């Protein structure tokens, strides 16, 4: 497939995490956004005065872009607070690319911060529940993912052991990441024996509940080449949605990742076989199975079998979630930005013992809501442009 003219037009030049896990008493989401933003700028050697576009999403703030700009004392002329759940930051990157290409801005700052662990989950992320679902008291979002898992098991024979394999692989990667929350090994038996939350998902099939934040700095390819670190070029992007509520999901076993992945690979002129590392939003173990299928790494229904035998674990053919993922590294509520931070670091070779050898193409994929929105980004090293 011929790549598009957008391929490689911008690059991520600065990445940083804020404090993660359990942050100091009294820290706010804005503190974490500001901290991450300052670190990301330091990472690329740009200054606050260089930033002319700002992007943010959060569950604890109504207008997080404005909080971000006030905190940093900047007045950018391009603002985007797109909120599609955890996939928002990949969408922000795609929108930043379009804006930079069109000449509406030059340096984009994307940020996220959350104190959902410290504040308490129900305070930090009040769930909007449809009047047509509320009488049945679903615990969202886990109920939706459990329903999707039940359907995948029914249609394709996916087993609880296969889902547990996702959690085990994530833990193995996390043990190589000093920043990860989880520090102890995890076995399939451990996952199966954990308390059940919403059948078939146990607490170990579900993402962590931590504090945390992150930031990205994005600029044109031309400017990126003059900065201090190896740029991670944006080769392809894609986003889509199929529903808001799980009762409105057209097919519980197929997500909009099919569309977002198709568009991202098409723009990049690449295929799943070209991907060296994949950072895929693993809010629940079923997610990794679904997205590997929908992004084209395996056929629909084969996801459970694909991940067996250590294929996505350290030493496997397709490294997935090398930071430990939402399941073992951190999950402050909206995880998407962390897929991009890790993807960039893999391309730069900054991941130490967990770095994939010769990492030229990294895929980052974000999910939002209850499998509701999907956004895919392909990043490439200088060798790819």
């Amino acid at each position, binding site marked *: 497939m011929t790549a598009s003219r957008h391929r490689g037009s911008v690059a991520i030049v600065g990445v940083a995490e804020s404090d993660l896990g359990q942050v100091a008493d009294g820290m706010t989401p804005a503190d974490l956004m500001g901290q991450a933003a300052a670190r990301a700028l330091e990472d690329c050697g740009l200054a606050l005065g260089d930033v002319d576009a700002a992007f943010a999403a959060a569950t604890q703030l109504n207008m997080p872009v404005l909080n971000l700009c006030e905190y940093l004392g900047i007045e950018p002329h391009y603002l985007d607070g797109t909120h599609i759940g955890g996939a928002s930051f990949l969408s922000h990157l795609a929108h930043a690319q379009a804006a930079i290409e069109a000449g509406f801005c030059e340096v984009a700052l994307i940020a996220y911060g959350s104190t959902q662990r410290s504040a308490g989950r129900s305070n930090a992320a009040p769930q909007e529940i*449809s*009047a*047509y*679902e509320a*009488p*049945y*008291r*679903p*615990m969202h979002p886990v*109920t939706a993912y*459990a*329903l*999707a*898992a*039940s*359907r995948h098991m*029914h249609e394709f024979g996916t087993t609880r052991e296969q889902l547990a394999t996702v959690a085990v692989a994530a833990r193995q990667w996390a043990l190589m990441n000093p920043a990860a929350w989880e520090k102890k090994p995890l076995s399939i038996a451990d996952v199966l024996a954990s*308390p*059940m*939350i*919403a*059948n*078939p998902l146990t607490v170990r099939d579900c993402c962590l509940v931590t504090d945390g934040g992150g930031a990205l700095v994005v600029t044109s390819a031309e400017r990126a080449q003059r900065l201090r670190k190896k740029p991670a070029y944006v080769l392809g992007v894609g986003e889509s949605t199929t529903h808001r*509520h*799980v*009762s*409105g999901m057209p097919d*519980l076993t197929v997500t909009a990742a099919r569309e977002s992945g198709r568009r991202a690979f098409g723009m990049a002129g690449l295929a799943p076989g070209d991907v060296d590392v994949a950072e895929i939003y693993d809010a629940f173990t079923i997610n990794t199975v679904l997205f590997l299928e929908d992004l084209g790494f395996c056929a629909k229904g084969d996801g459970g079998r694909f991940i067996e035998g250590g294929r996505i674990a350290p030493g496997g053919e397709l490294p997935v979630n090398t930071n430990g993922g939402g399941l073992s590294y951190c999950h402050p509520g909206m995880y998407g930005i962390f897929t991009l931070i890790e993807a960039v670091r893999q391309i730069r070779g900054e991941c130490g013992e967990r770095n994939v050898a010769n990492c030229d193409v990294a895929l980052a994929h974000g999910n939002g809501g209850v499998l509701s929105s999907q956004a895919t980004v392909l990043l490439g090293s200088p060798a790819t442009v």
Partner: protein
Amino acid sequence: MSRNLTTSPRATYVEHCRRGELAYQVPAGGGQPIFYPRLVAPRTGEAALEWRTSAGLGTVHATTTLARKGEAPYNVALIDLDEGFRMMSRVEGTAPEEVTIGMRVQVAFVEGGEGEPPYPVFRPFDATGER
């Protein structure tokens, strides 16, 4: 004089619930049944919608059992009604983990909580007429 509609889709749906009826919509010219009730048909954008009452028979499409701290486990399911629409509900009259995908179910209405209208749940349906 107001140009607003006098009744919301939700209000019509609830009125049917009070009469023990599971209501849904269809486009006036025919086409895919619509649930949740709304003002515009999805995909076609058609605004001329008609209300129907479901016979209440359907099939379990997806199911899970929720375990909330300090409470007995309960079922949450997605039900495909025979008329061609899907809704979230709860299957009662059998243990939550006994609910299986493909099980045939029949609607029944239960009282809502404080200030809430009656709402539809489902029970296993036995074709011989016994439940």
